[in-house]
């Protein structure tokens, strides 16, 4: 659980762990794998949901999930996709393009991608952003399911929800944690 004011560097830290961003100094390991050298291996078991969420506006919800699956080298049967969409309450708009979605719906779709394959680490930036009460409950359930399956979940948020309240450890980020500072080893699972 990462907390901190806006601009404290939470997103930057998540992105470094996700191997999307190269730290300008220092090193880190994820589950024993080096961020600098084993990026491929880390990404094989890690998923990152950015604050914006990775969805294509011109594809349908179902197509988005199917693409995400194929991109990860998994096959996603129609049944599996429908199941996932039901989990996040989007089954009824499976065949509508994301362009017609509200921000909250887009967010839910992005989060649904976390259940496409088994993960060692899930990084979620602002999990509750743009969500109503029902959505917040959804996220909490999602995180719970992930943890049950053995996934380590790191949430970066300035909001409070059930999942953040039950976090096993919390780290606060302030201005001080810039990309320049040496990083210590991150949570191992």
């Amino acid at each position: 659980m990462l907390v901190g004011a806006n601009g404290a560097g939470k997103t930057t830290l998540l992105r470094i762990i996700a191997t999307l961003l190269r730290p300008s100094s220092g090193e880190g390991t994820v589950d024993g794998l080096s961020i600098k050298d084993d990026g491929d291996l880390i990404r094989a078991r890690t998923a990152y949901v950015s604050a914006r969420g990775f969805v294509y506006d011109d594809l349908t919800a179902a197509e988005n999930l199917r693409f995400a699956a194929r991109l990860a080298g998994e096959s996603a049967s129609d049944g599996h996709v429908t199941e996932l969409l039901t989990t996040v309450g989007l089954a009824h708009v499976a065949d509508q393009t994301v362009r017609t979605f509200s921000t909250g719906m887009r967010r839910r779709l992005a989060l649904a991608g976390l259940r496409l394959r088994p993960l060692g680490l899930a990084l979620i930036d602002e999990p509750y952003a743009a969500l109503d009460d029902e959505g917040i409950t959804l996220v909490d359930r999602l995180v719970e399911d992930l943890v049950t399956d053995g996934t380590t979940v790191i949430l970066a948020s300035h909001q409070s929800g059930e999942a953040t309240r039950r976090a096993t450890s919390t780290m606060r980020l302030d201005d001080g944690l810039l990309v320049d500072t040496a990083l210590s080893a991150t949570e191992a699972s």
Partner: protein
Amino acid sequence: MSMPGRVAAIVWKDLLIEIRTKASFHSMLAFSALVLFVFSFAIGPDTPLLQRIAAGLLWVAIVFTGLLSLSRTYQSEEAAGGLEGLRMSPGDPRAIYLGKLAGNVLLLLGLEVVLFPAAAVLFQIELWPHALPLAGIAVLGTLAFSISGTFYAALTLHLRAREIMLPLLLIPALVPPLLGAVNATQLVLDGNPFGEADLWVRLLIAYDVVFFVACTWLFPLAVEE
């Protein structure tokens, strides 16, 4: 995590988006036709002259149109939050390059299927007897353009003034394949005396191979952050 599978997924995704939005292809078509028209007007109705330079005009039209479509290659990615999602996927990030490359090649080839006959009509040149060699040259030239173009488009994605940086970097890189494609095309249209066109075809092939390897290899460095 198979590379071909992931590349195919990206190509298919871009194809789906293109079919649904019809954003690129139609405007490319219109633009390239306009370019050919403007050339004809600028040069004048001197048919023998137009016939002699038809290959040059055709390929310049393709390059200009290609430049436009290149800047859109990553546009759908930017709307979806940058290349992050693609970079986050497990496996070699080069799949992104290959997928975008394939997409660009298909788009341009589709354009050329219409553009070549259009040029034949406007410039009164005979394409059909040379269809096969012309098709081969078109593929090689389009590959050359897309190989370098897709790469530089990714490189300049986050640069300021990228609309001018992309042509600035790409055009010197395109001089050899442009010379190759134009000369090969013109020679083929003229009946390929002394088999001269072969020299240019070999240049195209060499360029394609060298830069396919170089760009594919360097791609992860270009999109790293």
